[in-house]
């Protein structure tokens, strides 16, 4: 583990999903995309406990909208909730240290961004994974605070584009993650958040 608590080289290809982006995928009935992402490209979708709590909280309208398909995705192992129990599946390092690093970083980030976002980016940084999030405001706030966030940050699309975007989504998710893992993802890539990606020009 590195001094900043992150995995030096994580052989696992992970996509840490935030609530709003995941809900878009579920509402568009595109959970298959996450399956395909793992099957074809070996990229596994995971969520943090904060996101799981957010999505399943009956106080939020979204729980009634996506509760059943979300639970199905968990039960059928398309999505995994990252916890102290499951962390060992996604790292070759000491799982407890990695989990503690996520917790520590998550608590720091949650002063700046919402709980779900905070732990999504914290997990993405520590596990050297991509993050899937639609919250540009969160990325800006983390950026302004000079803290690292998920790299790259992948954004989902509005529902109306779902039919044409399925393959496009896969390509777009896979490409920056692969480039990042190969070390080819640099500032010159010139992606923008509005185009679905954010340049991972993170400090530290």
């Amino acid at each position: 583990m590195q001094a900043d608590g992150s995995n030096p080289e994580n052989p696992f290809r992970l996509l840490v999903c935030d609530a709003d982006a995941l809900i878009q995928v579920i509402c568009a009935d595109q959970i298959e995309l996450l399956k395909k992402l793992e099957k074809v490209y070996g990229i596994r979708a995971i969520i943090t406990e904060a996101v799981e709590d957010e999505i399943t909280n009956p106080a939020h309208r979204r729980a009634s909208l996506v509760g059943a398909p979300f639970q199905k995705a968990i039960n059928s192992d398309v999505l995994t909730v990252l916890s102290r129990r499951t962390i060992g599946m996604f790292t070759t390092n000491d799982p407890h240290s990695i989990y503690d690093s996520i917790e520590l970083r998550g608590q720091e980030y949650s002063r700046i961004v919402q709980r779900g976002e905070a732990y999504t980016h914290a997990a993405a940084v520590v596990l050297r994974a991509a993050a899937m999030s639609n919250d540009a405001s969160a990325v800006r706030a983390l950026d302004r605070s000079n803290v690292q966030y998920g790299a790259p940050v992948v954004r989902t699309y509005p529902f109306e584009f779902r039919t044409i975007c399925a393959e496009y989504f896969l390509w777009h998710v896979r490409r920056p993650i692969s480039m990042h893992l190969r070390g080819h993802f640099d500032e010159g890539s010139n992606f923008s958040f509005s185009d679905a990606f954010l340049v991972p020009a993170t400090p530290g």
Partner: protein
Amino acid sequence: MMNSLLEDAGLSPEVCASLLGVNPKNFALWASGERELPGFIAPELASVLGVSKDDLMANRAVNAPAIWYKFRSEQTIAADRELVVLIRRLGFFIRQLNSITGQSGNKWKIAFSVIRQGIEEYKRSAPNVQGGMAASLFRDFVNIGFSRDVLNERISGPGDIIRGVLRSLGVLIIEMPIPESQMDGCSFYVGDGGEETPCLFINTYRQRWFRRNYVLAHELAHAIFDIDDEAALIDYRKDSGQTSLREARADAFARNCFASAKILQVEASKLGLEWNHLSPPDLAQLVAHCQVELNTILRTAEIEKLITPDPGLSYGNHSLRKELRALSERALTAHEYFERYPGNQQWTGVHRETTIPSRKLRLPIPYITSVLAAVNSGRISEGRAAEMLMMDRDTFIDRFGHLLEDIAA
């Protein structure tokens, strides 16, 4: 075990989960120890309950802090305890906001210490002497003068000035109606780990501004002198009839904050009033200038022998509603006020309420503006702002979206 801690605190796990904005099913599993308490909620929960985060996460047996026993007295109800949970959650957010914006929330310590030291030599004196001295020191400290033209400055006057000063010192003031509660007001600490902040709560249900000012100062006295020993001081609408040293001192403090003998003499002289020949318009002028209800003014006037008991009794029978409404906007109902100033609609009580289903909290305007400023300066995200205001994001955008700057570029 968290379950027994909650039981001691008189809090149901379901309601607690709702107030903290987490899934009740998950909360029940954390509370029973069936699932490890995750880090995303542990610091906030620890701060709300007043226990250490490590104890909570390790599921160690801990006693509920004294504040919860105070709020389990016969006269308190579940609504009171739920209110305390929300206020302490707000205290947690305020501390985080201060740490992000670099503001100090601890200036109150100096002010309180100055006042405590100032009355040290009067410790053996009667409580009304202690309260009077403390009020005088407080007025000097916050520099409330007598010469302000209260009626011509829309938001100035002792009540506004005291609130402004207390907030700038880091004291949390919550004013909202809780119809079902017997509480008139209370004071307790929010925050933890040496970073505590006093909170003054005023139940505004059927309370006029002039009465609220008195309750505010009364609770302030408790915060200065008593909450270190008592954890929480609660005042009820129905007077128990027993007067303790603490209550007598707080009463004298509140009275002298707004209507000390000196204040009354100066105001009466400015207004050209004769104490034994006061008409209803004269009394309304005094109330409007001192910003405290008539019976508080009359009590001081009688104690200080400015009036004889007989006129005091007859003065007390006057209804000043009509005269006061003509003199002070503070006598208007909220509806009348916002009708007169429609531009201020975004700050109505309803707009400042959290959207937590089980219980709402009316947030202080300065806190909301600080959160919005933090979003506009890019220090926190919109999602975090909604979380800090305990509102769902759609409501947050509906209510305050027009006040957010477009900082996407």
